[in-house]
């Protein structure tokens, strides 16, 4: 016998269900209905129906199957009404309503597919056939359930730009027949990489802004992209174990642990050596280190796990001086073997300078300065400037800091470089 609850308690319960399970309901509805928009409508209809019916009937014993089933029926009803006006209405209806007769049985069987439905949604939104911008927007909209307005704020775009991006992405999914599926084993590795990239970009998007901006000027709640990315990485790992998923989650947690120490009250960037490490979040650090250990123990080690291991070494040191720089340098060497990019080489050189001093590091700088891939990379010039500054070669340092300032685009980076220029120019 279902329990009847006071209206406000019930409304809160339904809101909670929405927050916790609406993505699952949506993911399954997309599979059952074969269409993103139809499934989104059905999701809203299902929750509206719950708000009307549950005060009278009580909360069903299994609310999530109820919502999926109700959403599906509402969609079928709607298609029946529109059948005459939609060219392929009849075919679609035949496909999605075929197993209507034994709905409860079908849904029961379906529950085994739920984790896969969520993964199907993730893999479809992060399909490399979509532009990276579209993947990011679609993932935030469909997988994380953010509104178009929230996504627009997070990317400093207008809501109509984001809405258009999402509409176009959905059109491509439909027109080009991007399948709603978890890739088969032989394609899984590259497709997982694509998902990791989306999650990492989302995190960086949130991480590059000073914290405590959860409420914007007009009082609207700002989406915390870094937290969304972490939640997403957790979900992905829980549904499908993979070394790099584990390494990625570890990396995000360890970076996120430092967020309170990364900016001054005025939003100025504070670099790692100058951060107050007592502000680092020890709970996130131990959670991150646990995942690093799992990733490293699994044998097949990838770039995210190595970067996480580097972050873990920093997390275990009380300050820059007592950091195990030889280990960090060795990890960067390993990373450079997997990802021989100039940016990794630059990081490796910074670690080298911490082991052997700035003079030795300066000797290894010319090939990086000659690398055209780094010609626009402000951090290369900031690093070069810093080596000279440590050696007391102020005029060389000034030249490189000015070069870095010309290239820096992030306001926090610019402010930092201006500060360094001021310090060095002072008599």
């Amino acid at each position, binding site marked *: 016998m279902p329990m009847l609850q006071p209206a406000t308690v019930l409304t809160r319960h339904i809101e909670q269900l929405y927050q916790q399970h609406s993505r699952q309901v949506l993911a399954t509805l997309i599979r059952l209905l074969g269409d993103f928009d139809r499934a989104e409508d059905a999701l809203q209809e299902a929750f509206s129906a719950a708000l009307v019916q549950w005060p009278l009937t009580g909360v069903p014993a299994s609310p999530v199957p109820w919502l999926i089933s109700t959403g599906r029926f509402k969609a079928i009803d709607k298609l029946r009404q529109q059948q005459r006006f939609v060219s392929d209405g009849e075919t679609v209806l035949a496909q999605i309503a075929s197993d209507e007769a034994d709905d409860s049985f079908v849904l029961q069987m379906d529950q085994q597919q739920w984790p896969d439905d969520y993964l199907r949604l993730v893999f479809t939104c992060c399909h490399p*056939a979509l532009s990276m911008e579209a993947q990011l927007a679609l993932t935030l909209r469909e997988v994380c359930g953010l509104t178009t307005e929230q996504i627009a704020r997070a990317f400093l775009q207008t809501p109509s730009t984001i809405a258009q991006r999402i509409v176009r992405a959905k059109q491509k999914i439909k*027109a*080009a*027949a*991007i*399948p709603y*599926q978890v*890739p088969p084993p032989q*394609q899984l590795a590259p497709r997982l990489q694509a998902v990791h990239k989306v999650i990492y970009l989302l995190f960086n998007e949130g991480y590059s802004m000073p914290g405590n901006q959860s409420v914007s000027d007009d009082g609207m709640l700002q989406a915390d992209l870094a937290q969304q990315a972490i939640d997403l990485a957790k979900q992905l790992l829980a549904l499908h174990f993979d070394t790099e998923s584990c390494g990625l989650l570890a990396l995000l947690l360890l970076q996120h642990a430092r967020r309170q120490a990364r900016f001054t009250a005025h939003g100025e960037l504070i670099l790692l050596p100058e951060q107050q490490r007592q502000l680092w979040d020890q709970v996130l650090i131990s959670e991150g280190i646990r995942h690093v250990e799992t990733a490293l123990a699994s044998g097949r080690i990838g770039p995210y796990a190595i970067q996480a291991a580097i972050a873990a070494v920093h997390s275990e040191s009380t300050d820059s001086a007592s950091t195990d720089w030889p280990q960090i340098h060795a990890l960067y060497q390993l990373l450079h073997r997997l990802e021989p990019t100039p940016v990794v080489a630059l990081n490796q050189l910074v670690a080298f300078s911490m082991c052997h001093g700035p003079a030795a590091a300066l000797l290894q700088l010319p090939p990086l300065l000659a690398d055209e891939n780094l010609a626009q990379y402000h951090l290369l010039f900031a690093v070069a400037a810093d080596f000279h500054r440590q050696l007391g070669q102020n005029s060389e340092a000034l030249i490189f800091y000015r070069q870095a300032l010309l290239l820096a685009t992030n306001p926090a980076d610019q402010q930092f470089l201006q500060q360094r220029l001021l310090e060095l120019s002072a008599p």
Partner: protein
Amino acid sequence: MKYLCLVYSNEQLLHSLPESPKDAECQAYAGQVAQSGRMLAAEALQGVATATTVRMRAGQVLLSDGPFAETKEQLAGFYLIEARDLNEALHLAAGIPAARVGCVEVRPVRQLVV
């Protein structure tokens, strides 16, 4: 779903790079796709120097020498395939030997609304 896979490459380089495919390899891959039952048509094309572009304007046929657009990469051939979905189409396209030196644009075929 039908997909048209358009193979583009720089004509000057298509046959002269170390990883350039020989005709026999292209023939073999086409045969493989045909055997899988997914091939509707596939052909390699003569160079753009042999192309003639046709336009109808005000009832008049206008002819011009060469392809309609000057681009760095030219259409070198095509596959018209039947695939379950985009993933399958992309998988087939990735196997086209010329993809190693050029690129393959995969386009779903549109049903005319009549």
